[in-house]
């Protein structure tokens, strides 16, 4: 019995240390948004709300944020649409080429970002496509697509085909059956996939740095500033996004719980 109780305390202690490890840098990021650190913001110099009062105070930080939000929004919409269709098709279609399509979806996830970035920029350069917002979106849709497929596929395979059959028996066209029956049932999966796609796109640095040319996103801004010192405004924006994302998750959980009851 003692042994059991010992194990009972040891595992949670290790887990707590793991959580601490995971969260200390997040706390640092938030803490340094209140630092009176001037331009470099590397050492703690005292508490101030200056950066929070003027989040766009550092040059180019807000235009980089807007760039990331635009890329994230467009990539999410396109990747979620293509990925949802692909996921439904993969579960429903009966044909010999399915292992090949499965492989095609899996390979981008098994390829490191540097390789994706180098491959895409080679392609864009050989097509003489100017690097910028458009090429970044094309690249982001590509790497988000596979993750959307995986997330939505899990949901599609739980779907009972009899429901759509019932709709068809009630003289619904396939189009009506999709929008009135299938889509609402898939919505939680599609929503989760879209959130995943947005967060992957919004925080991406490596593929972006290869395919963006002169266009700047928020992660690229932070990385490029790292040598000269990152303005505390970057920490403010990151902390604000953190709080916003937590609120979204909280609302989703509360709504899901209310539905379950």
């Amino acid at each position, binding site marked *: 019995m003692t*042994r*059991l109780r010992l194990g009972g305390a040891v*595992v949670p202690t290790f*887990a707590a240390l*793991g959580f601490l*490890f995971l*969260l200390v*840098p*997040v706390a*640092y*990021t*938030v803490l*340094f948004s209140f630092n009176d650190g001037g331009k470099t913001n*590397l050492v703690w110099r005292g508490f101030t709300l200056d950066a929070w009062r003027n989040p766009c105070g550092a040059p180019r930080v807000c235009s980089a944020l807007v760039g990331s939000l635009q890329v994230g929004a467009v990539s999410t919409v396109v990747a979620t649409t*293509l990925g949802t*269709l*692909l996921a*439904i*098709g*993969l579960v*429903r*279609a*009966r*044909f010999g080429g399915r292992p090949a399509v499965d492989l*095609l979806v899996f390979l*981008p*996830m098994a*390829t*490191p*970002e*540097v*390789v*994706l970035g*180098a*491959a895409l*920029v*080679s*392609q864009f350069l050989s097509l003489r496509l100017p690097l910028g917002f458009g090429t970044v979106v*094309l*690249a982001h849709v*590509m790497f988000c697509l596979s993750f959307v*497929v995986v997330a939505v596929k899990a949901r599609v395979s739980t779907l009972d*085909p009899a429901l*759509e059959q019932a709709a*068809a028996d009630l003289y619904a066209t*396939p189009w009506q*059956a999709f929008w009135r029956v*299938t889509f609402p049932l898939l919505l939680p999966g599609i929503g989760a996939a879209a959130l995943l796609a947005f967060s992957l796109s919004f*925080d991406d*640095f*490596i593929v972006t740095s*290869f395919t963006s040319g002169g266009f700047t996103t928020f992660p690229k801004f932070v*990385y490029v500033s*790292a040598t000269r010192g*990152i303005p505390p405004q970057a920490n403010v924006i*990151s*902390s604000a*996004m953190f709080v916003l*994302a937590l609120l979204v*998750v909280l609302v989703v959980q509360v709504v899901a719980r209310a539905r379950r009851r």
Partner: protein
Amino acid sequence: MSAATVLRRSRAGTALAGQPPAPAGGRGARRLLVPGVLYLGVFFVLPVGTLLATSLYAPVPGGELGQYTPALRWQNYPEALGAFWPQLVRSFAFAGAATVVALVVGYPMAYVIAVRARGRRTLQGLLVVLVVAPFFTSFILRTIAWKQILADGGAVVGALRWLHVLPPDGRVSATSAAVVVGLTYSFLPFMVLPLFAALERLDPRLLEAGADLYAAPATTFRRVTLPLSMPGVVAGTLLTFIPAVGDYVNSSLLGNSTTTVMIGQVVDARFFRLLDYPTAAVLSVVLMVTILVLVTAYVRRAGTEDLV
């Protein structure tokens, strides 16, 4: 009616006879695949093809920096590998170390969320949110936070010196250890989440059965929990290892410019600073192929072990 059409029709017929037809299934469902498959064809398969072609390009004779011509210059491979094998080997070693550490740190976390917090939905939800919380702040800012945490004057280095883990003038900053810590940190959530998913499916009655049969908790863990969580271990280690091998944010922000350089940094520098596209392409191709070979071997091995 041609023979091929008859064959196709009859095959469709047997397929339909064998299983109840899904509504909007068959050809309609196949059409849904077209846009996504085309997209991945144009923006994944084609670029990888271009990368392969670029890896064999030759410099234009008497041309400027960055001018290459399509060729089959196979020497690019031995030349690039001869120059950069240490960075390549180091990338796999660092990523391997980070994956092992992430598994050791992440398993208890996933276990506590899935098994100890079972049935307590609020606590479970909260812990899952804590695991994904780092994703909500900038990846690069968090990496820079590690640079501050591991800095020479910081509390971590102070404690390690006091404990004589580090010599009095020892440092963590700009060492391999700092890069491995950074890599472990960056991809830890990708380890914890699949482990959690696998452990959550575990039937708690199996653990009780182990205890009822007088198995020590450690034995139950080794003989029941661990084997049943293997799918999570495989998924988690892959999701940690693959991005870690190619990462260059951690090694460039937390490492030094000689003994911690990873292959991603080399590809980046060759591409953008030296305009040496063929070498960058060779290293990318080698990285991709090596990972695919390792992943295939690993999944096969893990798969057979599962059956034994």
